[in-house]
């Protein structure tokens, strides 16, 4: 019955083996996990890189396709005031002018109204109504743009033509000259305003809510009225965020296609009156692209698209930068 030394050491050996295989298995599993993790990280990286390449692709494709037009027309493309596909003359001024004017009108109308909505939602609105009213404004942002255009052409333009337009023409201002057509640059600007109000109002409301209550309360404690608190405390505190929100709205207005195409009138003339029909970059693209001649017309349209992309990119970059610097400043 004597337990031999060999047997003991053998058993110890066996136990050690088991331990080692367990350790091996464990190590193998850790290695497997590490491999899976690297694979997972690689896969997610791949898709993130795919998104990154998307934008680079857009810029490269636009430039490549626009090159023939830019080479033919040179600087005249950017400064030409005639756009005539039948004569092969392509100047971007009319469309760029239309885009800037309609967006300008939209901002002039939308910014004060959005500001009012944001003030109402954050300061004066009874608490139980805050959420439903905020949601209603956000729903306005969800309505597809084609519906704004459709509604603008068939419902808004006729009403505008009969009521507001004659009255504005009677003021005799040169920017309101011309026959009351209903459609035109100004109408397009108004429909755009309606489209961007919810965006600007939501951003403004969100930044107004970041104002520390202590600041507002101390102003109230000094005897300020609600309006004075908004003017002298809330607005200065959130100025940068507010400007960022306005720029986001501007970016949207500049690139909007359908809401504008329906009501802008689609005329390739350089308008001096806001009531004249015109064309924006987006509406020119929407109207002419499908039937364009590939030789020079299509490259010219691509060049227009490139101009639009550059403009919106600049506006967005400015907005991002402003919001970011505002956020870091709000940190104190």
């Amino acid at each position, binding site marked *: 019955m004597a337990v031999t030394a060999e047997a003991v050491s053998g058993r110890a050996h066996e136990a050690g083996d088991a331990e080692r295989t367990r350790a091996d298995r464990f190590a193998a599993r850790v290695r497997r996990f*590490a491999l*899976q*993790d690297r694979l*997972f990280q690689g*896969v*997610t*990286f791949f*898709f*993130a*890189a*795919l*998104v*990154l390449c*998307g*934008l680079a*692709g*857009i810029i490269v*494709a*636009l430039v*490549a396709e626009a090159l023939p037009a830019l080479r033919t027309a040179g600087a005249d493309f950017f400064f030409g005031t005639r756009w005539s596909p039948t004569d092969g003359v392509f100047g971007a001024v009319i469309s760029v002018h239309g885009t800037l004017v309609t967006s300008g009108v939209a901002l002039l109308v939308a910014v*004060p*109204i*959005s*500001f*009012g*909505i944001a003030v109402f939602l954050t300061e*004066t609105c009874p608490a139980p109504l805050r959420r439903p009213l905020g*949601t*209603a*404004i*956000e*729903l*306005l942002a969800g*309505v*597809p*743009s*084609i*519906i704004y255009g*459709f*509604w603008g*052409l*068939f419902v808004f333009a006729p009403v505008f033509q009969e009521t507001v337009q004659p009255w504005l023409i009677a003021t005799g201002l040169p920017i309101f000259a011309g026959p009351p057509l209903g459609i035109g640059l100004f109408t397009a600007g108004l429909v755009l305003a309606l489209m961007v*109000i919810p965006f600007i*109002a939501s951003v403004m409301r969100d930044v107004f809510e970041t104002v520390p209550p202590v600041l507002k309360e101390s102003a109230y404690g000094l005897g300020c*009225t*609600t*309006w*004075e608190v908004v*003017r002298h405390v809330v607005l200065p505190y959130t100025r940068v965020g507010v400007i960022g929100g306005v720029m986001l709205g501007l970016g949207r207005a500049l*690139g909007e*296609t*359908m809401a504008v195409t*329906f009501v802008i009138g689609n005329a390739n003339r350089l308008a001096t009156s806001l009531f004249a029909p015109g064309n924006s970059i987006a509406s020119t*693209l929407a109207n002419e692209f*499908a039937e364009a001649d590939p030789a020079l017309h299509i490259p010219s*349209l691509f060049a227009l*698209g490139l101009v*639009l992309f550059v403009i*919106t990119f600049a506006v*967005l970059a400015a907005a991002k930068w402003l919001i970011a610097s505002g956020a870091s400043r709000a940190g104190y």
Partner: protein
Amino acid sequence: MTTALYRRRRWVNRVGLGLSAASMAVGLAALAWILWTLFASGLSALSWEFFTASTPAPGSEGGGLANAIVGSLMMVGVTTLVSTPIGILAGIHLAEFGRHSKFGAVTRFVTDVMLSAPSIVIGLFVYAVAVATVRQFSGWAGSLALCLIAIPVVVRTTENMLNLVPGSLREAAFALGMPRWRVSLSVTLRAVRGGVVTGVLLAVARIVGETAPLLFTALSNQFFSTDMARPMANLPVVIYQFAMSPYENWQKLAWGGAALIALVVLAINVVTRVAFRDRAGAR
């Protein structure tokens, strides 16, 4: 003298707040006006034939939008199937691996740019890559354009949602010896399921009504077709063409189509708000 000052300040206050309430009223009135005309003129166009018959020839009576509805469903369906996994995986990368990396910052910026890039420019891009090269307008090209619009939405919502997950949850999972991919997929992503679903639904709501990127990618088709490799009818473009046409029957169908799209989009928006109201950040 001080009473005059007080009176003036009170008046300024009243006028300011009054104008602010008035602008709220303008916003709500606009929403009500748009929805009212849309449903008043649109719902009467919705009938059995509207959903079963294809688009009628110019000037003829009757007909429906069946081909456009099917085309839209197919393109939006393909887009959702493709852009959801891509968007979620890219969002995971940004939130889990690229929070402080340079690559993450660049990708984040680029997604934001794509998020607000004019949709017609995306249409141009897809035309250049997927239409001009094969000389064929197609449903696939339309889906590709819609993907480029939907993916950034999904990426950003996924990332924002994942950023809300407390670090302690991740650490707890790591402490149990979970590999990173399992932590991402079955702990953090699971915790923000509701928010991510909301992001996908909102992306769908956005692309359902997109017209501009389809104008010269999917084009349109007056016949019933389920072939994604050919031009494909779709609701937004058909609405655009019919609304601009002089035919009364076509305009009526366009109103019906617009009401249908608005119903779908509003329904998605309301459902996501009600269903995920209490989830973190899913406003």
